[in-house]
């Protein structure tokens, strides 16, 4: 049976979401998207320049992908809401990744403002995917607010440090009924795979691909890793044991 992720009425067969920041040149974006198989692509609206086709980052996203504008640069719910509305008015659909960041040193998200923005935008019919610090209480409030998924960070944005928040993300996966998409911090395909093995619905990767020596090849590696991790999750990982299971049991001589 086909393994499909459903978000906002869309069916996705790829569980890798790709970011478009930091690529050089932008012309690598379509190749990376193709190579990874990603279907959802996030774009910072602050960098969308509709007046200049050749420098407009949005124009590098293949037409058959779901464009997910993000609210990068927003410092509070009001700014995030305004950016989301601008994106929709500009024709970029109704998916939006909420990014509200009030900390420029670590780029950690403000969960409180994110919840407020999610509530407003979900009520307006947006498919809201909020980037968040992995906190169970905040995630539950995001569910109540109408989020279509929750996107906890694995480590600070751009850090490539991997799944530092593993235990907290695991709790979200266990407790939250919406898709849990690990966003930010994933630096290696093996880490993406690990997130998928844990049961994450998808991962969002940007820096690790965009700043790789060969971004297109790295995009492919992430696509494969996500698929491998998902397949392993569905297959059901074997139980881990602390001790070896002896083929010649010491108590085999006992009988009923």
């Amino acid at each position, binding site marked *: 049976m086909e393994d499909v992720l459903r978000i906002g009425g869309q069916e996705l067969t790829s569980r890798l979401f790709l970011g478009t*920041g*930091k*690529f*050089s*040149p*932008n012309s690598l974006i379509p190749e990376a998207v193709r190579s990874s198989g990603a279907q959802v692509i996030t774009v910072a609206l*602050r*960098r*969308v*320049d509709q*007046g*200049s086709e050749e*420098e407009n980052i949005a124009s590098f996203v293949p037409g058959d992908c779901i464009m997910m504008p993000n609210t990068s*640069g927003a*410092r509070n719910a009001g700014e995030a809401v*305004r950016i989301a509305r*601008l994106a929709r008015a500009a024709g970029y659909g109704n998916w939006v990744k909420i990014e509200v*960041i*009030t*900390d*420029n*040193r*670590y*780029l950690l998200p403000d969960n409180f403002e994110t919840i407020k923005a999610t509530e407003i935008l979900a009520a307006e019919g947006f498919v809201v995917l909020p980037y968040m610090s992995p906190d169970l209480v905040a995630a539950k409030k995001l569910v109540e607010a109408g989020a279509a998924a929750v996107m906890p960070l694995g480590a600070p944005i*751009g*850090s*490539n440090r991997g799944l530092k928040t593993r235990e907290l993300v695991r709790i979200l996966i266990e407790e939250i009924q919406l898709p849990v998409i690990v966003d930010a911090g994933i630096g290696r395909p093996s880490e993406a795979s690990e997130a998928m093995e844990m049961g994450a619905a998808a991962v969002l990767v940007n*820096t690790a691909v*965009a*700043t790789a020596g060969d971004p297109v090849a790295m995009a492919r590696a992430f696509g494969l890793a996500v698929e491998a991790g998902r397949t392993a999750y569905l297959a059901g990982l074997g139980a881990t044991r602390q001790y070896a299971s002896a083929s010649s049991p010491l108590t085999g001589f006992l009988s009923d």
Partner: protein
Amino acid sequence: MSFYIARKNYEEFDFNGFFKCVSDEDVERVLEKNRLTEIDYLTLLSPRAEGHLEKMAQKAHRLTVQHFGKVMLLYTPLYLANYCVNHCIYCGFRVHSGLERKKLSLDEVEAEAEMIAATGLKHILILTGESRKKSPVKYIRECIEVLKKYFTSISIEIYPLEEQEYAELISAGVDGLTIYQEAYNEKVYAEIHPAGPKRNYRYRLEAPERACRAGIRTVNVGALLGLHEWRSEAFFAGLHANYLQRLYPAVEVSISPPRIRPYPGEFQTFVTVNDKNLVQYVLAYRLFMPRGGVTISTRERAELREHLVKLGATKMSAGSCTAVGGRSNTQSTGQFEISDRRSVAEMAGMLYAQGYQPVYKDWQVV
């Protein structure tokens, strides 16, 4: 509390004594750290650290690509007026310099804006001399109204304002502030600003804080290198950036390391700051503030700017002109001589050749 007070912690600090004690092992130890203290930063600014520049450069490059990607934001300055009431002994705009004074009419602002916008740039930095009478906040606000039609981001580099005045300009469409302390050493500051409102060291030093409280989005600070011994000046500029980032985490903070340039009239070099010094400063700052911006202007020559692309720079000016109305009137005299005269297209070409992406738009005020 303000940075003026925080800076006092180092009032009696013996910089030369500290530098004499720094060993190669100290520098190596700092280079292994992920998070640098203020003293670690000073260690990287020491003469001893000059022997470790390549290692610093490799790490600075890695951090810059990690946090910013291989991209460079391009912007250009637009001089609105050069009337000035100050007596700064190092500046071509100073009150008695004999410079022909000019202030752009709103039509002239529009003409300049059209020419700049045609190059593709979306970020602009507007400048005036320091004359509240000739270039009042009201005039700057009127100019912003014109410029908003052409640019998505407008920054100001003008005389220091009150918090309410910053708020007024922010609501008009300004999102960035550049203000250089010129010299962080208070005694030197007094010597080079013999008269005029700019003599008020503390009022200028605290201007970025007033702008942050008013809700500005980006702040760019720095020392004008060449006015005083550069290592302590670089140290205080970095501390200033760090202080602002800590207190106003939502603000994007950056530094500029401008070196004093020849200007019309008599010119005197105060303290030599060579390329190696400048590079050391940028690298040390990048390691101290991995997410801090670094702005490199056309004061620096093309070849050096090309190298700085990979050494921590995140923002560069292009197609610059330091004369009021100088793009439409080539007879005008500028504040200082530009060193890198390349056009926006040429700068973009240079960036592409290095595997970098020029960014024209990174914010939009609506």
